[in-house]
């Protein structure tokens, strides 16, 4: 492990992706260190979702090299399975399983994928529910919960698989304003515990206080990356400046 790749949790090397003729990711180069917290922002349609969905191969890239914990993503199903065990994902629309109770949502994958016993899986699930402060909702169905509660369940669900990387795709965009904070609080707490995080969000307050690095994307390219302080106070690229001007005036 002397080779310096080992230091990176995720590494994009000249990654390209097309949807038909549409070039959605262009020569993406990005290295993410273990435990690093990255916020990705950019205008709608710039490829942010596509970028992070390539990491657990919900989308496949067509050119370039993408490695997660030194495993190169390809059509190899075994590798894919390995990677998905390491990488958890939280979606904008929560994507809880509506036919299962909250507790069953949390225990399903540990039982099926990690082959835990039901008792053990439920024990762990309750721990995670306590961590996101909704243990008392364990036996309800997802649609009986508020949006903020559902998103916290979704976070707890991925945590039950003890992932090394967490991907968030606009986790607060579908929430009413009064619920955003409860979800951001949970995410902040996670960030403090050293888990590698990539988060697509326009919550600039969160980015400032939590991120190690902010990445700005436009038209399928990473246009600018910097630490949050410099990113917000001294953006170099004019597209970043225009974007920030728009967002921060809200």
């Amino acid at each position: 492990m002397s080779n310096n790749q080992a230091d990176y949790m995720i590494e994009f090397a000249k990654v390209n992706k097309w949807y038909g003729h549409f070039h959605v990711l262009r020569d993406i180069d990005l290295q993410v260190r273990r435990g690093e917290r990255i916020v990705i922002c950019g205008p709608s349609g710039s490829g942010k979702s596509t970028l992070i969905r390539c990491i657990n191969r919900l989308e496949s890239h067509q050119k370039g090299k993408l490695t997660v914990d030194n495993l190169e993503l390809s059509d190899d199903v075994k590798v894919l399975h390995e990677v998905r065990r390491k990488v958890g994902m939280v979606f904008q629309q929560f994507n809880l399983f509506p036919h299962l109770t909250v507790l069953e949502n949390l225990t399903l994958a540990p039982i099926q994928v990690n082959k835990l016993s039901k008792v053990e899986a439920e024990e762990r699930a309750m721990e995670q529910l306590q961590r996101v402060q909704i243990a008392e909702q364990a036996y309800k169905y997802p649609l009986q919960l508020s949006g903020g509660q559902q998103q916290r369940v979704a976070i707890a669900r991925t945590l039950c698989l003890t992932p090394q990387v967490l991907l968030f795709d606009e986790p607060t965009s579908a929430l009413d304003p009064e619920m955003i904070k409860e979800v951001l609080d949970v995410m902040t707490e996670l960030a403090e515990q050293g888990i590698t995080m990539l988060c697509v969000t326009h919550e600039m307050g969160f980015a400032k206080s939590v991120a190690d690095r902010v990445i700005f994307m436009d038209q399928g390219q990473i246009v600018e990356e910097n630490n949050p302080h410099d990113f917000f106070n001294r953006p170099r690229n004019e597209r970043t400046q225009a974007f920030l001007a728009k967002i921060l005036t809200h």
Partner: protein
Amino acid sequence: MVTWLRANLFNNVFNSAITVLLGTLLLYVLSQVWGWGISHAVWVADAEQCNTARGAGACWGVVAEKYRIIIFGRYPFEAQWRPLLATLLLMALLLASCVRLFWKPWLAALWVGVLVVFFILMHGGVLGLATVTTDQWGGLPLTILLASLSVVGAFPLAVLLALGRMSDLPVIRSLCTVYVELIRGVPLISVLFMASFLFPLFMPVGTSIDVLLRVLVAMILFAGAYLAEVIRGGLQAIPRGQYEAAASLGLTYWQMQGKIILPQALATVVPGIMNNFISTFKDTSLVTIVSLYELTGSLDLAVNSDPDWLPYKLEGYLFIAAIYFVFCFSLSRYSQWVERQVSRGKVH
């Protein structure tokens, strides 16, 4: 009550007139039906009496006289306790299979066990039971056997076909599509004809597959294609996010289908599935044309050869119609119950 009547039936002159007209018509029809079916009807198995009452009253005597043949077809008379017992067993199992609590692996084992017992009872040839070949099976036992095995066989086939049509693999997708479209393009009768007359021509000389088995397979293949389309409708209603969440949690294809996608997809199409089961149940009446005497066929057997009773075939038909109705109505009540079950815990 009175206000309801006034608001809905007599709210103006025109509507009042229609209400009176239709009401009179309804009363007239009911009194005719009552007169023919009940008050002037003959209830005993007496052909003389039936003959005198002809035109004025129904002859339910035909049912009293012929019910053993109608229910059991050509099955040897003295041995009819065997199909009776076999059918009761199978129906008990069907009822048990309706209860969610029993959906455990042992239920599948029980099915195998009951089917073996069913076959031994019906066919005999062991344990001192005289052999009764399948061409002598008939009536209600045959109807229930065909219907339940068609449904049990068609369901997994349909799930696989539906998944196949939604698959990412082009070869599997086109195979399933071609299959479904081919089967849907022909009537059941022609599939049955093929199974019973055409298929044997392609078999090596000297080998033969029981006609009942061939017809059963034909019915499964046919019902499966229709049911597959119902289930596919359910699959299409599942949002993409469910697949993505399942995939991101590392579930394999079959885990995802079995635990996430199918339970939701099937729940959304319960009415369609039950509809399919009911029509499959009634489709069994078509196997008469390939000389299997299920309920409808055994009615023909019972009266066609007996000139005394032939005039009262209509009453016989009404009798078996009532049997069909009891089964189909139970199925549809069950369907409503299932719907209520699956919608528990949902808030929309």
